[in-house]
């Protein structure tokens, strides 16, 4: 594990306990995140993306439990932190841009107070004037007038609210930002500009960012690397360019062929079948019932996420065999 990772997640397992039964929502996930990098995580609904994001901030609620693994941030394992230490870590080192930005702001509190309390909770010893100035400056950076500070959330549009959430996320200059479907509640035009703003402020801070979503187009524009999740596992991690030009995992290949392309006219391919229930995962590779290239080994042996070239990893027996 090199020192220059912003966040190093090793063998993270998060499960929902349904009575005696354990439902593995995040199963043995390992990845690194480098400073200034944007890592996209895509996957179908229920593939464990949001559970992963919440668990990294330890915001998961019972019946979800972290069953194992570590997440090294700034030299310490945040998953092992005590409540109060975790509270201090949140936002100062690790911030979140929430999924449902429409309801992510307290409806009865002015924007400036919702921004100020994040600073006050971390005892930076700033004066009121400094805090007010900082808030005004941040709002300017995300393209909002300073007067927004005096407003209530219901006076803002969806795009403005999401900009407030972005300003809020960088208020303490964290080294890692987790954006959980940051634009899914917005219309396409606003999506683009909000995403640009997000990318700009992230670059200014040189913070590492995890972008969670299922919009492949958005990922192609924003992310540097892409991780694909399927049924709680990461099945492929690749730099964005090689992912789109040469996807390795059969699931990635099918995902890409299901996207419309402006260059060639072809029938869009749908992936046959649907994601298996996490309660009754198929034996071997979880994707094998839907995989067009399935071989016997896939039905028996769970493939591991293995490095097959310099920067690329995939969890597939076929990829492994062709590479070796």
């Amino acid at each position, binding site marked *: 594990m090199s020192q220059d990772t912003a966040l190093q997640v090793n063998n993270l397992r998060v499960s929902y306990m349904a009575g005696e039964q354990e439902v593995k929502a995040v199963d043995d996930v390992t990845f690194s995140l480098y400073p200034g990098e944007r890592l996209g995580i895509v996957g179908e609904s229920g593939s464990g993306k949001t559970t992963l994001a919440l668990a990294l901030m330890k915001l998961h609620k019972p019946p979800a439990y972290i069953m194992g693994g570590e997440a090294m941030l700034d030299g310490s394992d945040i998953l092992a932190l005590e409540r109060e230490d975790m*509270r201090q870590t*949140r936002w100062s080192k690790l911030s979140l841009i929430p999924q449902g930005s*429409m309801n992510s702001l*307290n409806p*009865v509190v002015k924007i400036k107070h919702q921004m100020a*309390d994040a600073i006050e*909770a971390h005892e930076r010893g700033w004066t009121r004037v400094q805090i007010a100035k900082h808030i005004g400056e941040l709002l300017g950076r995300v393209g909002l007038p300073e007067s927004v500070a005096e407003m209530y959330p219901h006076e803002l549009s969806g795009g403005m609210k999401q900009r407030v*959430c972005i300003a809020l996320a960088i208020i303490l200059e964290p080294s890692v930002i987790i954006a959980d479907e940051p634009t899914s509640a917005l219309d396409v035009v606003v999506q683009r500009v909000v995403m640009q703003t997000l990318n700009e402020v992230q670059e200014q801070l040189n913070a590492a960012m995890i972008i969670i979503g299922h919009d492949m187009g958005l990922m192609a524009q924003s992310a540097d690397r892409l991780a694909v999740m399927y049924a709680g596992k990461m099945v492929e991690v690749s730099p964005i360019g090689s992912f789109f030009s040469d996807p390795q995992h059969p699931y990635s290949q099918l995902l890409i062929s299901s996207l419309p392309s402006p260059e060639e006219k072809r029938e869009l391919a749908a992936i046959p079948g649907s994601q298996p229930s996490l309660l009754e995962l198929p034996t071997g590779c979880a994707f094998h019932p839907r995989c067009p290239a399935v071989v016997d080994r896939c039905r028996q042996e769970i493939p591991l996420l293995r490095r097959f070239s310099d920067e690329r990893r995939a969890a597939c027996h076929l990829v492994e065999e062709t590479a070796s």
Partner: protein
Amino acid sequence: MFIIVVILAATLNFIIPRLAPGDPIGAVLEELRARGASSGGDAEDEIVAAYRARFGLDQPIHLQYLRFLFNTLRFDLGYSISYYPQKVEAALLRSLPWTVGLLAFSTLISFAAGSFFGAMMAWPRAPGFMRRFVPMFMVLSAVPYYLLGLILVYIFAFVMRILPLGGAYSSGTVPRLDLEFLLDVMRHGALPALSIVLTSVGFWALGMRGVMVTVLGEDYLTLAEAKGLPDRRIFFAYAMRNALLPQVTSLAIALGTVASGSVLVEVVFNYPGIGWLLYNALRSSDYYMVQGVTFFLILTVAVSVLIVDLIYPLLDPRIER
């Protein structure tokens, strides 16, 4: 809107007592006869006619109505029939401080305590015993005021004899503003207040718990926690602050039921408030007094709803004034 409510209230007030059987002069007469103080005959008929004229009961009903409406709006509620020549508004003003004091005090305590307990019962990081209060509050909120009042009187005033049986202050003392009298009033007010608080606290607690559960699932709570805010701040400024909004609306509505419910409490505890006045007026068919009291109760509810309406935009910026 407020004016319409008041006029409508006054009208209902005029009609309803007149639908009841019996007439006030007759009732007084009946009582006199029972005591053997009246012999009947022509002289009595004359007296009856004179009294009917004095109270305006001999006029056609619509004239009575118009005069009543006009007087009511000037807050001239007429003479009490059973306590003639006392004016109704004088009796009301005398009883008012007792009722308002008792109700405002106990309702506010119960609202504050109930809302806080309710919020704690839903808070996942509250001590575990908090959740055990739920069934207790359910039982309490199902018990009627007066029944609990009777039980409390029996235990504290009759068996243990540590608190007075009834009244607002010890008989023989003269109301004045000093510490001794104040303590006396508090001792007398303790049981009625306790019965109101205990029976209504469950309503607030259970209501708050319900809203709180919904609020705790909101996205802004997740973000508040992600921001690394201390628990205390999340609990008060994010969760409770939002869950209180529907509670305040209920408060406006509940003030009405509390006001009328207190009638029974005052009867049980012999408390010289508006409720006690109403109870006695009803027993003696004192039209004007009944009208005065009910009108006043409606006015109280209308005013409190008005106040809550005016305060609400301060609590919830989404509601425009």
